């Protein structure tokens, strides 16, 4: 069973954005800093007015790993996990499973687009290669 995140005021937009097919990132409404993981306050300027905005949903692989060990009984292996620098959100990385690709073909610098997997009230981001 996949453990799910608990929904909070600051992270609900991120985890529910997939219902509309959107990658929702938190930004400071004052200094425009991208804030991830989402927070109620901007860590740069302490502004408490934050907003969630849809970004393009694309990015570039900063790093990755291919997991071969079934950590829980029903885990299907191997699969790749990609740490992706998200376009339009400076400094933000979203780490997610890579789908629709042979895990051994993932590379640093590869371009990815987001897709989502719905479990209960959570839409988990997943990355798939753009080409």
């Amino acid at each position: 069973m996949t453990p799910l995140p608990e929904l909070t005021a600051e992270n609900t937009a991120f985890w529910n954005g997939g219902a509309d097919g959107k990658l929702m990132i938190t930004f400071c409404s004052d200094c425009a800093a991208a804030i991830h993981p989402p927070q109620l306050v901007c860590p740069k300027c302490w502004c408490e007015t934050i907003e969630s905005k849809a970004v393009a949903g694309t990015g570039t692989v900063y790093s990755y790993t291919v997991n071969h060990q079934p950590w829980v009984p029903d885990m299907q292996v191997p699969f790749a996990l990609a740490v992706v620098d998200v376009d339009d959100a400076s400094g933000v990385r979203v780490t997610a499973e890579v789908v629709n690709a042979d895990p051994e073909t993932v590379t640093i610098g590869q371009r990815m687009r987001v897709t989502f997997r719905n479990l209960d009230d959570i839409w988990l981001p997943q990355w798939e290669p753009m080409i």
Partner: protein
Amino acid sequence: MTTKAAVTGVGMSQIGRRTERPAMAHLVEAAKRALHCAGLTKDDIDGIATYPGKADNSPGMSPLGTGEVRNALGLKTRWHSAIPDGPSQMAPIMVAAMAVATGQARHVLCFRALTESSSQTAAQRASIPGAGKARLGGWLSNLVPAGAMSASNWAGWMAMRYFHEFGMTREHLGMVAIGERAFAQLNPLAVMQTPLTMDDYLAARMISSPLGLFDCDVPIDGACVVIVSAADAARDCAREPLIIEAMGAALGSQETWDQRADLTTMGAHDASADMWLRTDMKPEDIDVLALYDGFSIFVPYWLEALGFCGHGEAKDFIAEGNIGPGGRFPVNTGGGQLSGGRLHGFGLLHEACTQLWGDGGGRQVANAKTAVCGMGGGFIAGSMLLRRD
């Protein structure tokens, strides 16, 4: 606080796999050995500290808190604390140093007890933080639901980026694992005693690329006790006090395993830079290195963080034979966690103290007078310098 605190005793239980011994039995064995080492009695102990405190989020990861250990040992204390959120597994030793430096206590018993080998076997569960909980909060909630359930995944993508930028290969990490195994074969307390070759290392199954089985430390059952004493009280102990020359606990990035701008560095770099600001000593003054090796990749990170070589140079530093038996900067001379077992840094510190007291037997580093200890990986980091006069 420099030179106001010292390590005066260390003790370790008989570390093993699937010992089926209660955690408290391991703890008492380690405490008796530490008190004997220090020449103290239980009535001399007036402080107690641990990391992280009693926890049930991962099987056998921390079965004992300060409360039960105080009760079991009949301690009357003037200071006690368990520190889950401090700067690494070293936090209780740092807090103990601050407690004795400010007069809160004279002799603080710091402990770490684990029964991960027996407990994971019984529960048929690996060490997965947060497993079994209905919903996850905090930084785990951005990793575990994605399938990044194990620290080996988090260390895996750090290693992959590091390999990409600096041309490190699996063979370099193999040299770390093989060197530590060679030390383990000289340490009767180490759990992994069979020889390890590069062929063995490369043939072992992949866990989370580029990290394979021998890049991961070994879950064990055991306990370790480190006694931290006020410098003036330390002079009355049985062994020469090991002065805490400097500590570092700085952290410049947020508490995640994926958002630090440069993942070829980690919290160790911040903590270590801060530590060197508090001493006139330099890396070239160090005789013995005790570096966190929950995963082999942390060793080159710590070497660079502490300034033993430049950023990206660890692969050559390792390949030149600096860190194994006979090297100029021997790392984890007791076998480390890769071959000695996962005591969450306490075992590494135990070995460093053993070396400084000249008790290293066949693995003794000649005339070892100074040691550096770095604990933690990812955003978790604490650094400490020890010396004898």
